[in-house]
């Protein structure tokens, strides 16, 4: 319950914060990306946390989402609001296609097969130039600002859309986690054979989760495209910048919990920015080096994520109460 209270406070802060930041400025951009990455990590958390399948290929769905809505906008003038649903449909389809051969893989094999799938999508986007613009990338056209057209002059609406997305994805995550599906996923995670003999269709449950995760990730790809405005295959299908980073955020925060991805994003994205700001002018590589060192330190310190910090605090607090 207290965790929910904290979440509510967090959301309230996030709701007010954008208003305090300069609407055309830097920090609101950082905030928007933080919220977006939190939502992406939350979408990943469905398959990575609840089903315990560490996907390292979520950029595939993300990129499909970014490309789908942008291509629809460029070629047919379809508003990204609608394009987002087309993106979700294609993302879900892609998740289904990749899930069929990979879902029976265990652990590292699954992780590496999905990593390869992300790369496959990147190569396809690179090669299929007539549709995707190839390696040159796509620019989202600068249309007159309108809500229906999903075009804004300032970043403020984007920040709120990202916040809304985070709340929705987190809500979906919680509903699944607490419902029958959540029970089934936990059962599969802890003992697949036992789950099967007590009547859980493990393939179906994992497939459903993978598809939901893929749909959400693709829809978030649309939102990202609208904020970033320009992207190329290397950006949205990037293993390092999307797939691995999204997993990292969820894991650093605390995998399988609703608050984990949010904590992770609130840490990773601003720290990356801060490192770049403070050190990148100094010596090439220094900021990244420090970021990597911080990453190592955090993992050595809290291998199960920041959420354990919260749990420890709460435990101490609870003990204090009973005394």
């Amino acid at each position, binding site marked *: 319950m207290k965790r929910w209270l904290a979440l509510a406070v967090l959301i309230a802060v996030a709701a007010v914060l954008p208003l305090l930041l300069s609407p055309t400025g830097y*920090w609101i951009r950082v905030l928007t990306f933080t919220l977006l990455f939190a939502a992406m990590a939350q979408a990943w958390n469905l398959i990575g946390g609840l089903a315990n399948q560490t996907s390292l290929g979520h950029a595939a769905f993300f990129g499909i989402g970014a490309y789908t809505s942008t291509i629809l906008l460029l070629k047919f003038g379809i508003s990204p609001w609608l394009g987002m649903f087309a993106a979700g449909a294609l993302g879900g389809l892609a998740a289904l296609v990749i899930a069929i051969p990979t879902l029976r893989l265990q652990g590292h094999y699954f992780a590496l097969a999905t990593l390869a799938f992300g790369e496959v999508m990147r190569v396809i986007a690179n090669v299929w130039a007539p549709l995707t613009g190839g*390696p040159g990338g796509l620019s989202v056209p600068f249309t007159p600002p309108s809500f229906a057209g999903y075009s804004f002059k300032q970043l403020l609406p984007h920040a709120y859309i990202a916040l809304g997305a985070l709340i929705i994805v987190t809500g979906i995550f919680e509903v699944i986690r607490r419902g029958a599906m959540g029970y089934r996923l936990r059962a599969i995670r802890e003992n697949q054979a036992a789950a099967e003999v007590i009547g859980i269709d493990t393939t179906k449950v994992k497939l459903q989760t993978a598809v939901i995760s893929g749909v959400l990730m693709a829809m978030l790809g649309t939102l990202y495209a609208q904020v*970033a405005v320009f992207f190329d295959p290397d950006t949205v299908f990037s293993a390092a*910048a999307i797939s691995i980073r999204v997993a990292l955020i969820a894991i650093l925060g605390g995998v399988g919990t609703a608050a984990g991805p949010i904590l992770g994003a609130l840490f990773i994205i601003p720290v990356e920015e801060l490192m770049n700001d403070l050190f990148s*002018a100094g010596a090439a590589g220094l900021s990244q080096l420090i970021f990597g060192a911080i990453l190592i330190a955090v993992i050595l310190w809290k291998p199960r994520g920041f959420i354990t910090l919260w749990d420890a605090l709460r435990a101490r607090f609870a003990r204090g109460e009973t005394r």
Partner: protein
Amino acid sequence: MSKMLPRAGLSRRSLLAGTASLLASPMIGNAARAEAKPVNIGVIMPLSGANAQFGINSRNGIELVADEINAAGGIKALGGAKINLIVADSTSTPTTAGTVAQRLISQNEVTGILGAFASSLTIAISEVTERRDIPLLTMSFADQITGRGFKNIFQVVAKASALGKAQLDYTLAIAQAAGTKIDKIAIMYEDTAYGTAQANGLRAAAKAANVEVAMDDAYPLGITDTTPLINKLRASGAQAVFPVSYLNDSLLIIRTMRQQRITMPAIGGAAGYVIPDFEKGLGEFAEGVLSIAPANYDLAPDLTERFRKRFGYFMVHEALEHAVALDVLVQAIEKAKSAKAEDVAAALRGAKFTGGWTRAMTGGAVQFDSTGLNVLSVPVMVQWRNKELVTVWPKDVAKATAEWKS
């Protein structure tokens, strides 16, 4: 390393300043200061990741010019204001490049931005600078950069398609001068924005010149074995090959060609073929290799030798072009007599700049058309001669006659 600390210090201070202004509203911005308030100029380059080398070269070129101007008394129209470079790492992710641009604009109130070598990074930055009316000067040569109707972007070199076209046309001319007629060529290029755009130019030029393209293959970036490419090249029967690639692939391609005893001329597409490491890697086998280049240091040795003196290697073209970009930006500030971004952008549009570093460009000056493209810039053909790059074409700027061995 000795330079690292003060610069990092500056940046940290600027962060604090930015945060302070964030909290205390923009009131502080125009507070009366000494006349010589420094002019902030953003430099966004890939300082880490795959393109780091080129980002660092570019930064070196920019720093050279900035230090020279500051040493010569700063910007005169602004009472000798010093140039204050705000250098930031774009990494190799366009979104990060955009965020960095946003930061420099919001927190450092930059007058203009220079960057960011790779076209994808430059495009991402331009999406930010365009919306905030900040001039962005670049040497990235993707066609899209000035092809989108943006008002605040300025491309100091010819476009990639023009580069590709020149790569072919100059070659035909050089061969013809040597008495060879070329009617069958091979194109191989890395499948990046740079590679594909330049290959498009090559292809179009070949079609226009009625030259058969016997091989036309893209290959994945970061390829570690070019044998399949060279096998295919050997089978193609081409008279000359046009590889468009970065250094590692360039070395692989040339070495594998030599292993298979293929002697046809290779005419590189800039990038990997026009940096000192190309010669260092190949030694004697680099001798005589031709390449197209957007500019070359031997056109203004008096200027570019300062770079060699300070950094120990010849002034590579990205350093040179970024140096020119800074010089042009400063000239525009002088002209506008203002460090306000809008004023400077207005002074850049459609204007012609001469003197200073612009002499190092073909055409001896820089003039932007309405799209922001430098219309005076013409690519040059360079050839490796005794560890140096020598301009061999077009004839009016050539420092030596091209050697052609077919």
